[in-house]
């Protein structure tokens, strides 16, 4: 609100709006309810805590109550919560409907726990979670907020990953080190291709956004992993390049998909292709051929830099800002490692800071020219 007041005063001073209009806008904003994102977040948090409470109550194992009564009570709870979703849906109370939906889905999770407890099922947690994901997908799609689809996608990908890990479905004859590398290379392209397919099929937007989110998160985990391997002095003794095959197949399809996409402008496309190609080659190079700790930082900064350029051109400011911040931190890490002494580090940091400020000054002074140049490159 304070920021809006500042803007309004500035706009009045510059003569864009009249002071009476500024007062009307300020009064309108004053009377609006608190930000919906804040309410949604607290609502999701509250409902999740209640849901976890239900799971914990079930886990307490009320063995003196007969199995039939426990299962009957559980069914009644599910029906009551489902009725709540239907009832609030009719009355257009979106936030209350969302609370009932979160509670319903967490009660489904508690039901799986209860069934497992009553019948002493020895299934592992990823199997129970996968069952929950498959059984509740239809209900998750009813959500009009981003929280539930993101939670569902996270649990689905996580349980799929752990299920294949526990069951040794993914390269069982390789060590955990190589299997993790293979999975982390595969995951971003798997999420990106899946989200693209859902977009083409006009699938639910909330799931598409969640999958895009996990594309970024898993790629970040991959970059961090390779950087960590190269920064550590220990290199793997065995060879496991075959684990990269699924990642390269999916990654290759994604790379071709970006290359053939006519909806992406030229410069952005080049940056995305460079970023993705660097990500893919960093896995075999980082785990088998390179040993320099600076190579890890080099890959991290190059991958993040090219990707930051691509998201910057797409106008995604927040992701751009976070990437720049991470690059800065990694750059700082390299600098401290390379220089060593405090005095030299201080001089170097002051010089680097001045360099960044100089670039910002030049950017501010010549922004129009640079933008025109970039647009010229893109056309």
């Amino acid at each position, binding site marked *: 609100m304070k920021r809006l007041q500042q803007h309004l005063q500035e706009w009045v001073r510059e003569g864009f709006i009249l002071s009476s209009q500024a007062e009307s806008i300020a009064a309108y904003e004053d009377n609006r309810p608190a930000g919906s994102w804040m309410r949604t977040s607290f609502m999701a948090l509250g409902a999740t805590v209640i849901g976890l409470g239900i*799971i914990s109550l*079930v*886990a*307490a*194992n*009320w*063995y003196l109550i007969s199995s039939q009564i426990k*299962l009957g009570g559980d*069914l009644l709870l*599910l*029906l009551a919560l*489902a009725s709540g*979703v*239907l009832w609030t*849906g*009719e009355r257009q109370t979106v936030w209350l409907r969302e609370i009932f939906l979160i509670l*319903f*889905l967490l009660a*489904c*999770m*508690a*039901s*799986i*726990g*209860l*069934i*497992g*407890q*009553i*019948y*002493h*099922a*020895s*299934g592992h*947690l990823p199997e*129970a979670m996968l*069952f929950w994901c*498959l*059984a*509740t997908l*239809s*209900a998750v*799609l*009813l959500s009009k907020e981003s929280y539930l689809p993101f939670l569902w996608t996270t649990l689905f990908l996580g349980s799929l990953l752990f299920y294949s890990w*526990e*069951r*040794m479905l993914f390269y*069982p*004859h390789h060590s955990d080190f190589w299997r993790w590398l293979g999975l982390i290379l595969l995951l971003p392209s798997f999420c990106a291709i899946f989200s693209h397919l859902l977009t083409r099929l006009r699938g639910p937007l909330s799931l598409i956004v969640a999958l895009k989110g996990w594309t970024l998160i898993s790629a970040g985990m991959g970059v961090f992993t390779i950087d960590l391997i190269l920064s550590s002095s220990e290199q793997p003794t065995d060879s496991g390049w075959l684990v990269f095959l699924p990642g390269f197949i999916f990654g290759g399809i994604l790379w071709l998909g970006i290359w053939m996409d006519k909806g992406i402008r030229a410069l952005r496309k080049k940056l995305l292709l460079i970023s993705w190609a660097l990500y893919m080659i960093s896995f075999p190079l980082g785990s088998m051929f390179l040993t320099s700790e600076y190579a890890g930082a080099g890959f991290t900064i190059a991958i993040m830099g090219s990707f930051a350029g691509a998201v910057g051109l797409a106008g995604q400011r927040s992701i751009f800002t976070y990437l720049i911040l991470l690059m800065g931190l990694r750059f700082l890490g390299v600098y401290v490692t390379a220089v060593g002494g405090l005095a030299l580090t201080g001089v170097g940091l002051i010089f680097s800071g001045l360099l960044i400020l100089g670039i910002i000054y030049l950017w501010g002074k010549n922004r129009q020219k640079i933008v025109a140049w970039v647009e010229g490159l893109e056309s």
Partner: protein
Amino acid sequence: MNRQRFYTFVALLIPILALSGLAGWKHWHQSHGQEVVLSVQALDPRDLLSGHYLTFQVDYGLESMCRPISSNDALRNDALYVCLDPKNIFETMPQGEACSLFIRGSCRRGVFEAGIERFFIPQEYASRLERAISNKICTVLVSVTDDGTATLQDFRIEGRSWSDYVHENFAP
């Protein structure tokens, strides 16, 4: 009922039906099998969803059930059939008179698992039961259906059901 409301109704009904089906399937296996008593050795970890449980290795009276033929075989998850009468191991489902009662499972990291290695107990008794059974003879009552699916019915300490044992030995 309008279309939107109908879709919402169906979307909410699917998980309820899936869970009811799971409970029904488990109940059928528990109540329609042949009852067998097997001896076990127990430990106590905890499940995030269902609470405390005793976990154990079932003694089928067979040696080297998951003995790997090569080093890679130790990681296989293929189905395995343990015949209880007469004691034997089959890689395919035993037919006819070859075996009158068998349990289906698989070797996971060199250990045979048939889905009967976990018995859920109340949190308040978990640690006391674990201590109590460390030097007692423990068995499990298992229901085994014709397709080899085994479901736990009871955990017994020196022949008594765990709940009777708890009432007799632990003060409330």
